[in-house]
């Protein structure tokens, strides 16, 4: 796996070199990741300390971004709230990528009947609206980071499976796969060295899309009260709650919304650039 990782790092470096504007967004994303890693250390105050005497205040010296309905410090909650969001997004994307890629490769490289079965199953899963499936699934599991990761991860498996299947079909048609077979290479080797590294770029692009979608889905579920269990904050949940306090403290909804939109924006922009970068047709024109 070190080679694909190195490949990704190289690609990102090339990308940053060829498009200066992307560097800015990579910086934004790096900052967000940094906050996700060290947010709890950066939080100026206890994000869970309730202060009934200072609820829904605007920005002040004590609370640079103001307070929420429990009088908790919004800045601290914002800094902490990114972590479950990112954990869910990354975890779900990892599950979706692993599961979907495996299924997709089997569907395209395995026997015909298996491919048909897998792709029909994928169609079935796609015909469920994701948020409703999540609604049901989160309902019978305990809500929380781990179940969200699993549920959202499973939800996006079909998307990855489709991408992986299409990409694998293209790769399998190429002569170097034929060459491997003609040398007597076992399937294991063909998948590991022939297929996987060569379908990586569409998968990376799909991963950025899934990452963004998972963040939005997590926030949507949290918005419906099915996401992260309070008092643990997450951005989506903060937005959902803050929507009710638009009248009392308009900035309350602004901070998490802006942060969320910025994160998704950064991921989407980098994803777009990656796609352009990895797709030689688009690079030429």
């Amino acid at each position, binding site marked *: 796996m070190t080679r694909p990782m190195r490949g990704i790092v190289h690609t990102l470096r090339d990308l940053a070199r060829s498009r200066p504007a992307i560097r800015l967004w990579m910086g934004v994303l790096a900052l967000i990741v940094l906050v996700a890693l060290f947010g709890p250390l950066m939080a100026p105050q206890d994000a869970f300390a*309730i202060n*009934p005497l200072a609820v829904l205040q605007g920005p002040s010296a004590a609370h640079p971004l103001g307070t929420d*309905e429990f009088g908790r410090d919004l800045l601290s909650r914002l800094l902490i709230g990114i972590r479950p969001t990112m954990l869910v997004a990354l975890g779900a994307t990892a599950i979706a990528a692993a599961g979907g890629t495996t299924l997709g490769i089997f569907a395209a490289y395995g026997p015909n009947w298996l491919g048909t079965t897998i792709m029909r199953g994928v169609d079935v899963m796609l015909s469920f609206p994701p948020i409703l499936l999540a609604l049901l699934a989160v*309902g019978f599991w305990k809500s929380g980071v781990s179940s969200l990761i699993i549920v959202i991860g499973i939800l996006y498996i079909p998307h990855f499976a489709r991408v992986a299947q299409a990409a694998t079909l293209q790769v399998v048609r190429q002569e170097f796969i034929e060459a491997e077979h003609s040398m007597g290479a076992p399937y294991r080797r063909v998948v590991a060295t022939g297929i996987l590294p060569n379908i990586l770029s569409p998968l990376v692009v799909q991963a950025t899309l899934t990452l963004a979608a998972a963040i939005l889905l997590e926030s949507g579920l949290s918005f419906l*009260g099915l996401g992260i269990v*309070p008092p643990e904050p997450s951005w989506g949940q903060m937005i959902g709650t803050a*929507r009710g306090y638009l009248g*009392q403290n308009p900035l309350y909804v602004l901070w998490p919304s802006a942060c969320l939109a910025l994160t998704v924006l950064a991921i989407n922009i980098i994803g777009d650039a990656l796609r352009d970068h990895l797709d030689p047709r688009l690079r030429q024109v």
Partner: protein
Amino acid sequence: MMNLLSLCATAALSALLGSAALAEGSLYFGLSGEPRTLDTKVNAGAPARTIRLAIHRGLLNYGTTGELSPELAESFEVSADALSYTFRLREAKFHDGTPVTAADVKATLDYLTAEASTATYKAELSVIDTIATPDERTVVITLKKPFVPFPHYLALPESAILPASWIAANAETPDAAPIGAGPFRFVTWERGREVVVEKFDGYYKPGKPAVDEIHYVFYGDENTRVNAIRSGDVDIIDYVPWKDAAALEQDPAITLDSVGGPFMMLQFNTKEGPFADPRVRQAVSYAIERSAIINTAFNGRGTPLWGIAVPEGTMGWSEAAANHFSHDPDKAKALLAEAGYPDGFEARLLSTAQYGFHQNTAIAVQAELAKIGIKLTLDLPDWAGRMAKNTAGDYDVLVAGTAGDITDPDWLSNFFYGGETLVRLNNSAWFNDAEINALLDEGRTTLDPAKRAEVYDRFVQRALETSPFVFLMWRDQSFAVRDTVEGFKNLPGFLTFQSGITVEDVVLK
């Protein structure tokens, strides 16, 4: 493309016209949810009651003052032994034009108490022994044993009188189009959207109702509900979210009608874990600063409760009992230590993510109890999930918010009467205290008000000792009413959920 253009044109035109009322004489009532059913015998929640109180009337109901008011019964008499009740019916008509007769009353009560009945108040009404109908307008009900709160149970919306013919036709299909003797006639129930009722000209109160029709529109989301009244989509909303109360108060076109009535409390699993010990439950009561909940989950709109949720001025209330507890973390810690938990413990707190105030109460309680070392993890399923766990006793602590059903102190039975079965919504799981059960039984059957008051004083003392609940606060319960509406009234105390009856007085300006 054309569609969008016409949309834009529509929007622009409407902007010019402003949002005028849709039809003269129509009242739009925004409800906090869609009733699952309009079946009269089941208490299906506040929205269902609100609609049913427009369609149905009982022998008695709670009137605008909060007192029992004679409705289909002009008057009633109680025999000296309190076993026989004689009701005198007034001249009233059902919506199908037939008169309300003694036979209808008998049929209704038989229907509610039938063996297979799923009526919510079947147990209470089953105290009825016989029903006699000496003439068309007279009903004599004999009880098996004295039951002082009996008229109160008859006054509940669930005891509304139905036509005998309707019962004969629809006993098995209670969701059939309802027919009652109330001020409004049922028109349609468009699922997912609204129930429409229209003025019933044959209503027995002269000059009422003054409104041609009422649309009960369902707004499950509280923010949407508030938006609806602020933008004039509806005229009244129930269950005003506490966080929006202040803003609605400031709105010149809207009046906020608030009463203190329902209360918030914690229920406990009294069989397993630390909370089986009354001292731990008392420690919880001492540990929670009530204002922390009121100010955060209810935006300051409530009154602290430091004893048992007995309303002031009713039996069982006393200054001392009402201030039995106080915010005293040291005492709470001492009690914990006494119970064998000097360093606190971990437990589960069940609430629901579906209703903001339930969830926020849980968050505040969690924060408060953390201060004495009780670490609670929140369990926040949806309402149905919470109900299932509640009735299965699958919790350590549970946030509950409710009100008594009737204004008679017997409402306490519903909460404190113990038993071995678990299908109990409002009781702390497995709580069963013989002394409390005996006192509740005594209270029901004691005729003399002075003696009865004494019984309830003793009950309150015992309840404080055993503390199966920790009462947190009286919460304000509000309706928001646009100024075009006159005559709607939020009934005081527990009756706030029956305020829907006052739509018969509503006049639109």
